[in-house]
């Protein structure tokens, strides 16, 4: 499974979304389960999936799926298709 696919699966699991609700352009404001608990759940999921721990500041600054990708790419995790 590619990292993009892993991330998509993670986002669906963490925020309890249907596949039809997902896109790589998804914004936090569009997801009602992306609240403070969702922030923690995403951070834990990213650690379990990609092995990187967001700092608390990083976790709360993320506002979109694209932000997750951008941040993880700075840690050497590639999302090339």
């Amino acid at each position: 499974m590619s990292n993009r696919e892993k991330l998509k699966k993670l986002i669906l699991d963490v925020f309890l979304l249907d596949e039809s609700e997902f896109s790589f352009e998804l914004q936090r404001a569009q997801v009602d389960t992306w609240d403070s608990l969702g922030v923690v759940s995403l951070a834990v999921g990213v650690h379990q999936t990609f092995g990187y721990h967001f700092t608390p500041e990083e976790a709360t600054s993320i506002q979109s799926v694209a932000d997750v990708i951008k941040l993880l790419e700075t840690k050497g995790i590639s999302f090339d298709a």
Partner: protein
Amino acid sequence: MSALLDAPPYGPRDEAALLREAVELTRKHLAGCRDYAAIWPDFSGAESLEGLPYLHVGLFKRIAFRTEGVKHQRVLLSSATTSGTSSQVALDEVSAQLQAKSSLAILKDFVGEGKRPLVVIDDAASLRQRGQVSARVAAALSLLPLATTTTFLLKGEEPQWSLVGDAVRAEPAFFVYGFTWALWKRWAQGGIPPSLKELLAHKQIHFVHSGGWKKLEAEAVSREALDGALLSGTAAGSRVIDFYGLVEQNGVIFPLCEAGARHVPRWATVIIRDPWTMKPAEPGQQGLLQFINVLAHGAPYHSVLTEDLGSLLPGPCPCGRSGPRFTLHGRVPKAELRGCANV
């Protein structure tokens, strides 16, 4: 926002401000919550904290209290009970901020300011609930502001020990949070691999637990046995902190101090009521615990009568904390086995 939270939790108390804020909160809930107003239709004010209306905790299983005029978020659920019914507490933005500030201030007083990794004895899947949050998760998250990273130990029923090793390897100290039962079963008796045990022997660990002792009492596991098992094979300075709380008093937690007392922060109070007359009990007399705080804006859970028995302790505490303190004697006999009260 209550100014009472601007000072340390166990410093000098301003009982007049506490009463004023509690009365204001009562009026707000009476105006905004029809179910509450139906129970207390004649409230016109209180000259003492003992005179404030209260709700029995059992009502939160039957009525989804909700005060209008605030932005509600998730519903906080107590853990499963013998009746299968959970207490439901409507959380809101303002209260969530106050409650986080409260629990953080209380925890810091017991574990210090230092941030460190947090290991939670739970499955991360428990974070994934639409519109709800469990008492277990809420309790774990109260440690989050003190955590540099958060690792959930379990995946389903399986402990992921390698994740713990990764999270704490480079750190001298870390937190472990779990329900009391889970800490015993999953950590103390969880079969930690020898290589991780070797690593943990050099780590200062603060074990924090809540949720009650019923299951451990049934297995004849004492506090001494739990503490001993947890602290065995850890570095000096490791400790175990047991806190008591209720979902119906979210944000106000009562860690057991070094002298065996549970202290009440300055933004809350405890009243002991005679279970037969419901009048405030004499100092030292055992009775039902009633808690009042000024953090609950989303629903009238600012003043609740519990099914737990306790008594106030006289005089100053050897631990140095001031303010009222109590000892917990357990649940009222024949009361429903409620879900663990922990936040």
